[in-house]
């Protein structure tokens, strides 16, 4: 399951969470993008890298501290998409 932050829920039909089948984080984001086209571009730059202020957590671990987008996703795990604490952004959170 992927849990989405407030600003992205409109793109997912106001869903806070989306069920996907995936073996890695990359596959999970690809699946999310197939279901809601354009979602990957909100999370990743054209270079393929995760956007600088976007964080994806596998349960409580930031995937940047694991294997990045190639991090394996166990069955039943939850991915949390959150943006960085960057100060004073309550209006968009």
């Amino acid at each position, binding site marked *: 399951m992927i849990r989405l932050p407030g*600003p992205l829920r409109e793109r997912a039909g106001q869903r806070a969470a989306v069920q996907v089948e995936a073996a890695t984080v990359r596959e999970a984001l690809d699946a999310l993008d197939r279901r809601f086209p354009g979602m990957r*571009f909100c999370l990743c730059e054209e270079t393929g890298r995760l956007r600088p202020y976007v964080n994806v957590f596998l349960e409580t671990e930031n995937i940047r501290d694991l294997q990045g987008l190639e991090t394996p996703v166990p069955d039943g795990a939850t991915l949390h998409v959150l943006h960085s604490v960057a100060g004073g952004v309550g209006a968009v959170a």
Partner: protein
Amino acid sequence: MPVRRTYPKGTVVLAVGTKRGLFLLTSRDRRAWRADGPHLAGRRVFHAVLDARNGARLFAADNGDFYGSFVRYSDDFGRTWKDPVRPIAFPEGGGLALKNIWIVEPGRADEPKIVYAGTDPAALFTSRDAGRTWELNEGLQRHHTRSRWQPGAGGLCLNSIVVHPTNPRRMWVAISAVGVMRTDDGGQTWTFCNKGTRADFLPEKYPEFGQCVHRLIPHPGNPDVLYQQNHCGVYVTTNAGNSWTEIGGNLPSDFGFPMALDPHHPATIYTVVEDETRSNVGDQFTVYRSTDAGRRWQRLTRGLPKGRTVRLGVLRAGMCTDTHDPCGVYVGTNTGQLFASRNRGDSWKMIADYLPPIYSVAATVL
């Protein structure tokens, strides 16, 4: 179903892009103004424009803090917004990633579905369906000097787009800090148009490219005439950019960002220049006007603030005129004040305060 928002014919609409959203100011008489917004609240709206060709479609360069940049559009004056089906993006795996969208510019009057956008990294994007899909101009990206382009302080941004009104093969773009470029074959190839413009910050003062052009605007009646406010002076070309003549004359500074002109009297041009602190020169916030295409500049101060603590700046898209005669002139500051003149700049009134820092002001008469 929400009622579609409309305004009476003749209403002046100011689309004001700010660091934290888009505001619309409207007036029937240019005396009393009504503010509406913020739309796209919290977003960095670098530029917004109401495209009268497409049923008053409102385009906004929406640079979110986290989840990417998009040109969004609204057909109900900001009440609801649509996302492009194919947004502005560089080719995947090409090494470039979109940082910001700086400008959205409607195309020619007889091509109502065509809209252009300029970005950082510097690139020109075209929509042929009024904003639903966008495509990269490959010719500009393939320019043989592309790898040597350097950013200005604001980034490597394509900040101005000017189309030739009748020749569909000719247009100009301005990039900071690259300079002005022109195509004569519909965007397949581009040539530099920087002869006569200075780059004081480079070892060579008059290079082929590397100039930091801040704003490029067209003459409404003579497509061979364009004006630019540059990092190093104000210039005019009378030969479509083949060469430029400096017209800074008696301006107190070379440095400024915005530029505008009176569409009914196009020898009347406006700028705001700044000192080395990037705010007004001296204690008086001043708009400068020339009625003779830059030979002599007048200080316009009536109604504008003065004082030891007055330190205002105006960004490159922060000034515009409307199409009335006498024209209205509008100036938004990077500290959130919006000043308006309904008499070609002779006198001014603050029509909004406490806005977020203003990035852009664009006027449309409905």
